[in-house]
């Protein structure tokens, strides 16, 4: 997966939800990575999914169509070694 300073983080309320979402996103051929939830996000289980910023609309679409379930969607930007967290959903 492309490594950049701007990406999405999806959070879940259980490990099972995270694993299910991983399957759904892979079925939809999105480039994602299951990672430990970043420390600056606290309201979540231990696993999160990191996704490409270019897939933002696709992820929101899947969420609205109830094909994909998560608690929050964040956009993370890293600027001069500082992390900025923006909650999208």
């Amino acid at each position, binding site marked *: *997966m492309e*490594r950049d300073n701007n990406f999405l983080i999806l959070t879940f309320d259980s*490990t099972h939800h*995270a*694993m299910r979402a*991983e399957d759904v996103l892979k079925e939809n051929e999105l480039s994602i*990575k*299951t*990672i*430990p939830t970043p420390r600056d996000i606290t309201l979540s289980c*231990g*696993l999160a999914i990191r996704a490409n910023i270019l897939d933002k609309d696709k992820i929101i679409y899947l969420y609205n169509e109830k094909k994909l379930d998560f608690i929050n969607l964040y956009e993370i930007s890293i600027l001069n070694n500082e992390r900025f967290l923006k909650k999208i959903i």
Partner: protein
Amino acid sequence: MKEIDARGLECPKPVILTKNELDKIEEGKVKTTVDNEVARENLIKLATSINANYEVESLEGGLFTVTIEKKSIEAKNTTKKMVEVDENFVIAIQSEHMGRGDDKLAKILIKSFIYTVRETKPYPNTMVFFNSGVKLTVEGSEVLDDLKALEEAGVEIISCGTCLDYFNLKDKLSVGNISNMYTIYEKIRNSTNVVTIG
């Protein structure tokens, strides 16, 4: 540049000859000609172990030349500072699963673990993969990007050759080098801080 003709010499002779020449100089290049792949790989390992740049050329008749460039101590120190590697820390990964209980969960945990290694400095000196752990260093592995980044930053990635062979994955290796039990033991023995995961 010093040139060594190590054709026809048995392992570990080519490596010893090359190391002796490198020890004699402060900085500069040593070019060694060998006639087999094992000797070539061992020279590459020598170069990596002394943190030197190297170039490999394949010649006709199954010959190879390996040119190792030794840097002055000053230049070496600057590279080391940049990569932030803990020289004494080795991570041994013995399975594609992290812990026992549920395999699906265990696969996710190991991905998560390797991602975290990449995110956290200082990096380990070496990561050793054996048994089904080698499935993480081959084509199709979901942690290849992390492992490649770690390798680029100076972490040595080693996969057990016997294990790759057992799983029929020898030609699928996508990051790091193939190694044998001697090297694996050497890495573990030379470190006081070895963590086994799997």
